[in-house]
């Protein structure tokens, strides 16, 4: 996520709140953080903190961060966390459709390609989430709930979803989960009872064979996830399946498509995803790397198999120039803004606007078939 930095005064604990640049309203709620971009002048109102672009601190007792680099990147309505060391994390970007809440860094899987492996102690961020949801713009289009494995929060997750339903009833809420917890019928029942009709379950399935899937996620979870999917389906929940592609599973993609169609024909959407080379994926790169160009044949077969059967199917994180022409229409721009990059080569490409581009982490490792598309017919 986006990060900024500055020097601190009057700040002892972490503070978070919503950015505003309006300084003249006297009675703002105290979760507002003033983004102070002027040269000087008076400050009215009760702010939680002040972010100040200028190199010198303002004279005030309110906690403040001054000399903030790139302060222009912040927008009215963004929600930020200010740490005592002067680091400012942008938790929610007002103008982004990719916002996520990281609910925990704990996980019950240890996937070989996990981009965010758990480091240090397990930390749950359930409490802060309520406040964040409360501060979010009610018109937000999208919010992801992720981790770690959010379902490890147990009943707290249900409270968070309930909170989303109440505060953000029109926001599409996507829960990224391995689905193992949904093996618990009773838990799914309580979850379904919230009846949030904008809630989607994003569940990964990496193979049609239990041993292969389990090898990838590092635990015996295949049949639990399947039981979970069936439990969710019993309550008519909206389920999407995600498949991250790498060297261990690319060969069986067409069979996986077949498996999904026959066993889970009720899912809303299936996404095939290029791997993000970060965290464990970078560490295990020799075991996992295959040039995305080299699995085009299997990907094509899987996509066409599902498309013929009238299933919604997409490709995430892929670059258009690497995909065969007939698959390009399935590609979606899916990489979050703050880590989405393009290469120099891309500047000459006719399709740059439509292309999803790269993860920032792919700058050094990416397909050797990247080349600007200069003729749309090819």
């Amino acid at each position: 996520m986006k990060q900024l930095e500055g020097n601190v005064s009057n700040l002892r604990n972490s503070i978070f709140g919503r950015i505003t640049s309006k300084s003249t309203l006297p009675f703002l709620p105290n979760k507002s953080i003033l983004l102070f971009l002027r040269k000087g002048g008076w400050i009215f109102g009760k702010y939680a903190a002040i972010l100040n672009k200028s190199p010198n601190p303002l004279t005030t007792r309110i906690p403040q961060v001054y000399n903030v680099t790139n302060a222009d990147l912040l927008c009215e309505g963004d929600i930020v966390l200010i740490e005592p060391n002067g680091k400012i994390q942008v938790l929610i970007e007002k103008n982004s459709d990719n916002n996520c809440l990281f609910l925990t860094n704990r996980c019950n899987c240890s996937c070989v390609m996990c981009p965010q492996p758990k480091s240090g102690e397990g930390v749950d961020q359930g409490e802060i989430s309520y406040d964040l949801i409360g501060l979010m713009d009610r018109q937000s289009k999208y919010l992801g709930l992720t981790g770690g494995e959010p379902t490890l929060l147990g009943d707290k997750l249900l409270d968070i979803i309930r909170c989303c339903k109440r505060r953000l009833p029109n926001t599409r809420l996507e829960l990224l989960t391995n689905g193992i917890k949904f093996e618990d019928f009773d838990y799914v029942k309580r979850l379904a009872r919230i009846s949030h009709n904008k809630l989607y379950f994003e569940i990964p399935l990496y193979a049609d064979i239990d041993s292969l899937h389990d090898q990838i996620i590092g635990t015996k979870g295949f049949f639990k996830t399947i039981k979970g999917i069936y439990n969710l389906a019993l309550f008519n929940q909206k389920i999407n399946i995600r498949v991250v592609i790498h060297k261990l599973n690319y060969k069986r993609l067409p069979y996986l498509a077949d498996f999904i169609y026959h066993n889970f024909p009720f899912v809303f959407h299936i996404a095939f995803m290029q791997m993000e080379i970060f965290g464990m994926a970078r560490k295990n790169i020799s075991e996992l790397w295959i040039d995305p160009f080299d699995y085009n044949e299997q990907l094509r077969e899987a996509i066409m198999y599902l498309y013929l059967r009238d299933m919604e199917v997409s490709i995430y994180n892929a670059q258009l120039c690497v995909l065969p022409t007939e698959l390009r229409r399935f590609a979606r721009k899916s990489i979050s803004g703050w880590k989405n990059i393009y290469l120099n080569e891309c500047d000459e490409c006719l399709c740059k606007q439509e292309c999803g581009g790269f993860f920032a982490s792919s700058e050094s490792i990416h397909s050797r078939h990247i080349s600007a598309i200069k003729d749309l017919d090819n």
Partner: protein
Amino acid sequence: MSYKFLPFRFERLNREEIFLSNEVGEFYFISNEEFQKFINYMLNTSSQTFLDLKSKQMLTDTDIDPVVEMLATKYRTKKSFLNDFTSLHMIVPTLRCNSNCIYCQVSRKEATSGYFTMSKPTAKKTVDMIFKSPSPSIKIEFQGGEPLLAFDIVKYIIEYAEWINLFKKKHLEFVICSNLTLMDKRKLDFFKNKNVCISTSLDGDKDLHNKNRPLQEMSNSYDIVIEKIKLCRSYLGKDRVGALMTTSRFSLEHMKEVIDEYIKQGFNVIFLRSLNPYGFAKQKRDEIGYEIEDFIKSYKEAFDYIIELNIQGTLFIECFASLLLTRMLTPFSTGFVDIQSPAGVGISGVIYNYDGNVYVSDEARMLATMGDNKFLMGNVNKHSYQEIFNSDFMHNLISSSCLECLPGCSYCAFQPYCGADPVRNYSEQGDIIGHRPSSEVCRKNKAIIKYLLELIRRNDEKINRVFWSWITRRNILEEKL
């Protein structure tokens, strides 16, 4: 033994390959050598064949319980057409008819006859009986005879059913099966505002249609039916007017013309139906009937022609193949009264004769008109719903019509796609269980299923696209894929 089998059935497809299917209709083509290895526990657990068979749940080397649970879920889905009980209710408002079809299967009566028409009290009782069905959707289909000869009764039934449905709130639709000769604007005005579809008969081009389906008064019925189809469409719209064909001996050589005629008349669906051996069709077998092998040959040729038309860009569906393909290629449930297991007799479809007699199927009624009341369930004027639908006879009939336990079917690899027909078994072979090796229906179904499997096995992108256009009912023939 490094792996265990899960239930599967097999059948030789050709010299090189064997066809495997499981209980829910998922299948796999396997070579002779691999099959030998498979059944002798010799497959390498990291081989492609092993993984494919595991994915198709025909074997496992790890957990068994969760796989069985998945199969059970899929089996429930496949059989879910049974959930709602009877939804197709056919009514014969009259047995009188003004047609003179050479293959008439119902032993029709003269149009001018004073009898053979349903009375109002019987019609009322029939509708009351229909609405006792627990099914949330009810389709009332008027058969005959020619139902428009008894338009008053048809009208009465539709109006009374709609009245009852104000309280029952089911999904209610009507179908009129008619030769259309008596269709006029007044009747169409009435049908227009009801949820009524028209199903007529069109056997082919002018010569063939007139040969198969002359009227009692005149021989040129073709011009009339074409004109009336247009009239119906102008009132009801194209989607609410359908046509069915029956194959007589004279049709066998002219399947292409039949298909061209359907396309010419703007239909995009055809059901290539063979003759059912009841009524005249049975009596005049030598004259108008044929060996089932001849029908199969003709069907295949016609089917190839249809596929070719589709590949050229004309979306045109063959219903029987479309039904079988849905069973073979999708995990969804497809009940179809004539071909399902357990058979649809009484539990999916039922027919009420003009005299209030209730029969398990149209064929059962045909049998009754030939003097055999074996499949009479009761009479709406004398019996209760329980007595008619929950009798020992019905229990026995249904439990004798599950392919899963019928000799010859229980081990057939095509079983998940096929169906039982106890009435046909009884009328052809003398008992409801039947004898598969001498059964025409079995030969026909097997041949067509096998033919479709061969086409699937080809994995030809163009043919696949045709099949999936049919199954998903959307046109992807022309799409750039």
